[in-house]
């Protein structure tokens, strides 16, 4: 009986729900397609216009996504990859698996960003988030943080994209002094976690005064929980940007539909779902504007390395980080 059930279950998964409708497969990270991410709203809105079946395939987080694309190569079922960030796009472009999108949108990004292969769909500033009720005077720079005796939790740059973001942040802001900054930060770091959710969980449990997250994190607590106690510390040297992008795979068997999806990605229907599900800034500000919490912490200065620069910086910066923290 069990075997029959199993077979029936497998069949329903294997057979496309509506065989005659074209299927657009979008490979993305887990939290995009979960019930609490933008996935469900985006799927509904796009399917209303495309006469197609939009399917999200979850593939772990941003870094796992790129490994998945490389693993599948040209044999991939996917048509669009959504959720890489600019520290990964150089490696992604080098695979030769992506095709140009041919669009030149006006975006609300705080820096100039254009890439023939990748289109931004949202972005955010990395920041250290803290609890205003426990910490009254937040440091105003990474250096001040390193000089303080505040305790922080960060993500590991070898397994998580925010961790890698911090690595590039320190390098972009301090250049040759990055090693020195890390050495000074070493005694502030309570621990390094494998991913963002573990770090944020430890912070909420009270294990650290600050956590590496985004300037938009306090907006989640404000809008979803009615809690205004969280804040993001604004640093004088500027904040490194995470720009999340999508690209079309050259081997797609639905290139027209993929183009249609990428164009749809920059419309209100997609963009308005982003802020309060992905808790990032939409690439193009929706007509209705952003909810109140999103303008609370806007750094004056944005830092970003070009994809090629980020790719070239990663290995030496990682070695520097390991050396400074292993002492």
């Amino acid at each position, binding site marked *: 009986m069990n075997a029959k059930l199993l077979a029936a279950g497998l069949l329903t998964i294997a057979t496309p729900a509506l065989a005659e409708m074209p299927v657009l497969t979008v490979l993305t990270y887990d*939290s995009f397609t979960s019930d609490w991410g933008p996935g469900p709203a985006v799927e509904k809105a796009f399917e209303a216009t495309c006469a197609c079946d939009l399917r999200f395939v979850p593939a772990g987080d941003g870094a796992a996504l790129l490994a998945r694309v490389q693993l599948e190569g040209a044999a991939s079922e996917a048509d669009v990859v959504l959720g890489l960030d600019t520290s990964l796009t150089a490696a992604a472009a080098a695979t030769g698996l992506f095709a140009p999108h041919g669009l030149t949108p006006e975006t609300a990004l705080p820096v100039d960003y254009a890439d023939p292969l990748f289109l931004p769909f949202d972005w955010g500033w990395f920041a250290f988030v803290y609890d205003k009720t426990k910490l009254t005077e937040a440091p105003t720079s990474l250096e001040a943080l390193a000089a303080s005796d505040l305790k922080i939790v960060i993500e590991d740059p*070898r397994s998580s994209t925010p961790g890698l973001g911090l690595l590039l942040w320190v390098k972009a802001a301090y250049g040759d002094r990055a090693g020195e900054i890390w050495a000074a930060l070493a005694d502030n770091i309570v*621990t390094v976690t494998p991913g963002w*959710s573990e770090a944020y*969980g430890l912070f909420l449990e009270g294990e650290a005064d600050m956590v590496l997250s985004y300037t938009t994190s306090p907006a989640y*607590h404000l809008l979803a929980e009615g809690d205004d106690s969280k804040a993001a510390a604004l640093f004088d040297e500027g904040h490194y940007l995470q720009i999340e992008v999508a690209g079309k795979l050259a081997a797609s068997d639905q290139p027209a539909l993929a183009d249609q999806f990428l164009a749809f990605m920059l419309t209100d229907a997609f963009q308005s779902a982003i802020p309060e599900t992905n808790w990032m800034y939409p690439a193009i500000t929706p007509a209705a504007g952003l909810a109140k919490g999103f303008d609370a912490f806007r750094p004056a200065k944005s830092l970003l390395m070009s994809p090629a620069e980020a790719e070239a910086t990663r290995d030496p910066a990682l070695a520097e980080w390991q050396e400074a923290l292993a002492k």
Partner: protein
Amino acid sequence: MTCARLPPLTSLLALLFVALVTAPLLAVAGRGSGLSLGPADWAAVRFSVTQALLSAIFSTLLAIPVARALARRRFAGRGLLITLMGAPFLLPAVVAVLGLLAIFGRSGLLNTGLQALGLPPLQIYGLHGVVLAHVFLNLPLATRMILQGWQAIPAERMRLAQSLGFGPREVFRHLEWPMLRDVLPGVALVILIICLTSFAVVITLGGGPKATTIELAIYQAVRFDFDLGRAAGLAGVQVLIGAFAALAAWALVKPAGFGAGLGRESPLPAPAGWRSLADAVVIAVTMLFLTLPLLAVLLRGLPGLVDLPESVLPAAGRSVAVALVSAALTTCLGLGFALAAARRSNWLVEAAATLPLATSGLVLGTGLFLIVQPFAPPMTLALPVTVLVNCALSLPYLYRILLPEARALQADYGRLADSLSLTGWPRLRWLVLPRLARPLGFGAGVAAALSMGDLGVIALFAGDHQATLPLVVQQLAGAYRIEAAAAAALILVTLSFALFWVFDAGGRRAAA
């Protein structure tokens, strides 16, 4: 002698499991270029081995007094405590870490207490924190496995010891030590290998890049560098270390050879005096050490239960179904392997029942993906692959749990049963199942509970709309919903524990 050779089906299955470990490794290596490992990789290997050795030694040594105290004392709540011993082991790593931090963390119970007394705080992050967490997770497993050993000493031997006027020291030398020689190497081996591949616990509590394990290096190699050759090289080193440890354990095992008893419940002598006090302290400290973090997990999860997302229920259903199928398969296989190995130790069975533990989850998943992809969309095979992987990963526990008693059974009744031509189903029904009910129930419980939790390996096969409970927990935590994630994790732990309890209690009742 019909059964001296390995039955063909067992050989075939053992071969299949060895292939399940090696084929994905080779598939990954085949896609890479060269297996070169750098100095950082060797540092990761050294750290992994160090922390795993320490964790195994501490978990195993500390479990001996606990198991002995539980074996020879009777007190209210003893059964409950023995059952609870199954709980820490099946906590998802992140949940266990948060539970431990509620007690030992910077703002945990212990440091709050120390602060109130004006004492300096204790720091949990570092190698000692990693070992502490691994002892928390594995001490109960070790205790249960050693306790089985104590309970397997025939009552007749204990009575003989009493009538010969043996004191506790002589009982230890002539009865308990031989039993430990039989059981401990297997226990230490399993724990060593679990800790060798431990990932989230080590990074989170390790406190920084000093605590880099092989598994993290593999993560980096696959995900950021896409250097599959290096990933396969690292995974290969991990498997070799596991194989070496298995050989060492194999060489150390010395069957106790107590001979048959009539299978009566053995009233172990319970010495009075300071030993009674020591046992009470051991039990009390263990109970506190295990239950406080579990209580923290419970308290963290409760508030979120009221508005739990709807998707938790179907995900829980899927997880339980997968766990039951996996447990049934694993139990049949584990019993087959243990009985075959009890007749004659066989390296193929030994390898099939050990190596899956030492493989890297990420490399196993990636390799299976590479193997499957040319033939079918991996998503369509999510369920069978999950069951197969769960089976491979929980088989080693079941095998270690069954082996000592299967060996004793063979030594005591094997020849009698053979001479009566008691083979096949009747032998299973009238000899094996009744005699092995207790370890079978415990092992099946462990297998079922483990199959509820595993996630990493099959992440590549996950499709839309078929999330299992661990994935839902991860998705909730990734979407800021920490409270809901804690509640879903509590449900996961409760279900795993319930499955474990049903099998374990069933086995114990059948044995009584």
